[in-house]
Structure formats: C-alpha cells, structure tokens
C-alpha cells in the first residue's frame, strides 16, 4: 500500500506540481492514508537533516564563485583565449564554444550557469558569423553538460553526499570523461564543418596575440588549479576549497580585473543565496522522500526485481543507462541521484562495479539528461538566452546527443576512462 507513493509521485510530477512539493505530497498522502503520524514527523525531520550538511555547503559556494567569475568578465577572456587558438579552423566558433565550455567547467559546477554565460556571448557571435541560431543554441546546450562532468560539480557533490563516497575521488574521476565529451563534440563539429561548409571565425592568430589572450585568461585558468589541486592534493576539504574559490573569484573580479565593485556584491550574494535555497530545499525534500523509500522497502523490492532480469552486470548497466536517460529527460539530476542512487548503487556495487565508476556512470548520464528534450533544464535556458524556440533547439541538438550517448556507453564499458586518474592519485583503494 505504502509503495503506491511512487506512482502517485510520478502523476503529481507529470501534471505540473513542482518537484519539491511532489516529493513531499506523495509520500505524505500515503503515510496519512496508512495512518502513521509518527512517519509524517520523520518525513519532516529528514528535510532538515538533509539540509544540515557541511559537504552540501560547497554547492552555494561554487555557485557564488561561478557568478562572480561570470560578472567579472572572465567568460569573455576564456572565449577570446579559445578563439586565439582554434578560431581560424573551419567551424571555428563552434569549436570555440565547446572549448570555452570545457574551460568554464573548471570554474563552475553547473550546466545552467555555463549555458547562460557562454550562450549569451557565443550565440549572437555565431549568428553574426553565419551559423543558424538554432545550431548555435544547440551546441551551447550540448557542450554545457561538460560543466558538471569536469570538476567542480554540484551533481557530484550531491552524489558523494547521498552515497557517502569521496568527493575528491569523484572529482578526479570526472576529468577524463569531461574532456572526452568535449573532444567527441569537437570531432562531430569538424565532420559537420566539412560537409556543411561552416564559416571560419577569422585569420589565424599570431603567437603574440595568443600570448596576449593567454595573459588575460591566466588568472581564471588558475582557479581550477587551486580548486582541484587543493582538493585532490588534500590541502582543503571540498567545502573549504569552494569557499577559497569564492574568495579567489572575489579578489580577481573586484581588485584585479575591477569589473565588479563592492557595491555589486550584495546583489551577487543574494542571487547566489536564492539559487542555493532552491537547491537545498530540493535536496532536503529528496532526502525525506528517500526515507519513505526505505520505510516502504521499495528499494529491496526493486533490487530483487532488477536481478530477475539479468545478473550480468554488463547487460544491467546497459539497461540502467537507458533507464537513467529516460529519467534524466523528466527529472533534474540532483533529485534523481538522491532517489535512485541508494536504490541502484548497492545492486551494482554488489555485482562488483566500483562505487566511483558507478557514480560517474550515473552522474554523466543524468547530466546529459539536462540537455535532452522534452524536459532538459539546459534547453530552457538556451531557449531563453537565444530567443529560439525549444522545439527547434531540440531538433538541432539530436546529433550532439547521439555523440554524448556513445560517450556514455564508452564510459560505462571501459572503467579505465574514469578510474585511471583517481587510481594514479591514490584516491581509491586497489
């Protein structure tokens, strides 16, 4: 009876109830119907319990750092840096868009921030250069999913928090998959550039120009070194690193590049606080929801059912990829991880898949889900930044999604892609 909260949740979600309320209303109603007042109180407690967490604090801080970097004109410097190196090839600006996303990913943990920062700069520029607007919006959305794959990553922080794995190991494991997604997209662009005769952005830059662009980009490019070096090198905990990153972004944008004044700070902080509040409440409600998943024993029921389909981990991984891809179309990555992680994780870890490897499979898959129609969050942002309709972006993005699906399968079936870096750094045993 209690397990009925799962279908009820899906119904509430599909008829348009905000995810936060659906995650509380569905189990709340079923608990009310089965007459267990003490469980409703437990449900409430766990909203608070979920939010009261030190690791989670890295999310607001990385969001603030991204916002500061963005207002500080840093995005522009990264784009110019990319352009000076690859702007001259055929399809130059498309390549610049992807490369800028990869660089931006080292500062920001969010695909949404990436889409709005790089999109607002690159989409008009690409249009002027002769690309169609829908293509420009599509490549912006497709490449922005690199944001939460290359560390830092809000999604991985949430994963590490719910599944009790090391953030440092997870961050290290995301580096190669993130670069792989970027390089694969660039290969596709190169092929398309030949076939459709994409424009070049300008003449080849001289090494003096490149040196100049590098000098302008060096401070923001140094941020990932601080963040990752700090976390992986064990100087900071991830939360401390995120606060240090915020302070670093503050110093460069206020005192070095002087693109933000002290008077702008309250507004930036308020924007960060609001965005964080929404995420924190979402995480809290997802943790509460997870409690009812435990109480109803649906995780065990589902796990047993999954094992009746097959006990071959490779086949199950294939099926799980499809499931996650579908879930990713409808649900944001954060709640999807909190709800599905504890159900799916143990099944695969028992089958011998490394916890970090599984974390990467799940995170990358759900991250790509942010850019898949019909419900991809990033598509909405790309649409509002570009003014192009979601439907036409959705169509234009399909070839890029196809490439990303191939990458997901590569990551799934070749553990070395994600596991090599954390192994070399000694962040995982074995």
């Amino acid at each position, binding site marked *: 009876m209690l397990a009925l909260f799962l279908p009820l949740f899906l119904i509430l979600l599909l008829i348009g109830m905000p995810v936060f309320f659906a995650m509380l209303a569905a189990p709340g109603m079923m608990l009310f119907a089965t007459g267990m007042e003490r469980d409703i109180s437990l449900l409430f407690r766990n909203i608070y319990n979920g939010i009261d967490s030190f690791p989670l*604090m890295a999310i607001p801080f990385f*969001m603030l750092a991204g916002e500061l970097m963005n207002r500080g004109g840093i995005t522009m410097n990264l784009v110019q840096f990319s352009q000076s190196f690859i702007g001259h090839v055929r399809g130059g600006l498309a390549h610049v868009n992807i490369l800028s996303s990869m660089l931006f990913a080292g500062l920001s943990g969010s695909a949404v921030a990436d889409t709005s920062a790089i999109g607002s700069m690159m989409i008009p520029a690409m249009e002027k250069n002769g690309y169609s607007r829908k293509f420009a919006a599509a490549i912006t959305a497709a490449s922005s999913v690199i944001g*939460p794959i290359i560390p830092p990553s809000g999604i991985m922080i949430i994963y590490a928090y719910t599944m009790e794995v090391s953030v440092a190991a997870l961050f290290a494991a995301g580096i190669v998959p993130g670069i792989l997604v970027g390089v694969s997209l660039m290969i596709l662009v190169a092929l398309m550039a030949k076939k459709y005769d994409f424009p070049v952005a300008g003449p080849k830059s001289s090494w003096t120009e490149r040196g100049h662009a590098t000098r302008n980009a060096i401070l923001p490019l140094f941020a990932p070194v601080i963040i990752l070096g700090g976390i992986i090198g064990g100087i900071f905990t991830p939360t401390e690193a995120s606060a240090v990153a915020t302070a670093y972004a503050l110093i460069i944008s206020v005192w070095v590049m002087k693109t933000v004044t002290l008077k702008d700070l309250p507004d930036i902080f308020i924007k960060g606080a609001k*965005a*964080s509040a*929404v995420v924190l409440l979402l995480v809290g409600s997802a943790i509460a929801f997870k409690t009812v998943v435990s109480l109803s024993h649906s995780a065990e029921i589902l796990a047993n059912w999954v094992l009746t389909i097959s006990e071959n981990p490779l086949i199950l991984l294939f099926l799980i990829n499809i499931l996650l891809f579908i879930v990713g179309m409808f649900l*944001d990555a954060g709640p999807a991880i909190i709800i599905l992680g504890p159900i799916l994780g143990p099944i695969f870890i028992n089958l011998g898949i490394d916890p970090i490897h599984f974390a990467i499979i799940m995170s990358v898959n759900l991250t790509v889900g942010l850019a898949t129609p019909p419900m991809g969050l990033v598509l909405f942002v790309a649409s509002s930044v570009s003014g192009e309709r979601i439907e036409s972006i959705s169509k234009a993005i399909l070839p890029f999604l196809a490439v990303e699906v191939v990458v997901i399968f590569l990551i799934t079936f070749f553990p070395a892609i994600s596991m090599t870096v954390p192994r070399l750094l000694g962040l995982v045993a074995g």
Partner: protein
Amino acid sequence: MIILQRLVDYLAKLNEAIGFIGRNIAWVLVTAMISVILLQVFCRYVLNSALPWPEEAARALMIWMMAVVSGEAYRKGGFVAIDMLLFALPERASRILKLTLLVCAGIVLFKLVTLGIDFFERGFRSRAASMHISRAWIYLAMPVCFFTMLLANIELCLREIGCLFGDKKIFELELPSNSASSSGAE
C-alpha cells in the same frame, strides 16, 4: 472581486516586505558564511590548529540563509515543475489545475509549518555540539522558511482565483524574464 483585489494587494505588499528584509539578511549571512570558513582554513593551515565551531556555525548560517530567501524564491517562480500539461490544456482548465496544485502545495506547507514549530520547541532539549546555544535556534529557521513560503503560496492562490473569475491583467504576478536560470546545482 474588489475585496479579493485588496487582499491580494496587501499580501503582495507583505510578501514584498518579507522579501526585502530576507534579501538583506541573506547577503549578510552569505558574507558571514564565507568569512567563517576562510577563518577555519586560515587557522588550520596557517596557525596549524583547527577551531571547533566554524563548521557548525557555517551550517547554521546556511540554513538561515535558505530560510530568509525561500519565500521570495518560491513566489518568483524559482521552483522547477514539469509544465507541459499546463501548457497543453485550454486556459480555463489549465488555471483550475494550477489552482488545485497550489492548494495541495498550501496543505503541504501548512503541515510543514506546524511540524516545524513542534520541532523548534523540542529543540530546546539539545545543545549544539560546538557552540553554546540551543539547537532550537537553528531549528527555528525551518518554520520561518515554510511560513514565508506559505504566505507566498496564499498570494499565488488568490491571484489564480482572481485570474479565473476576474481580470487577469490585474491579478497576474509579473515575473522577471530570466527566472529559468535560477535553478542551481545542475
């Protein structure tokens, strides 16, 4: 209809005021949060002796930061929903569905407020691990958070009723155009 309009106006003013106060508390809290963590980094790596309280203090600041801006974030459409069906339905049906969903959300929020107050009262029994305050003062953030959201929800409900039976030009809440970009971790 006039009474409804008055009510919506008052509520809107109240919610705007709460939003204004919340925003101004929030940026102070964020500043404090960054300072506290940086202080801890400084003590641990420069002075080589970690302080016991910054972690817990920063968590308390974060929870309060969330509490003071949630009402406004909710009011301005910051909560993600799948609105395909709401767009697909004819306007009247869509508004009725939306109102129903708002009422459901209101019930959830009301329950959260009452449980939150209970939670606050019980919090006096336990003390924060590293600070000499009762945990109740941290727990208080939850009922505050949900109460401000409830006020916003009531306003949204009344506006929806107004749109359903009256002039939607008067009752529609103006939203900032970039509200789509307010979702965070992703």
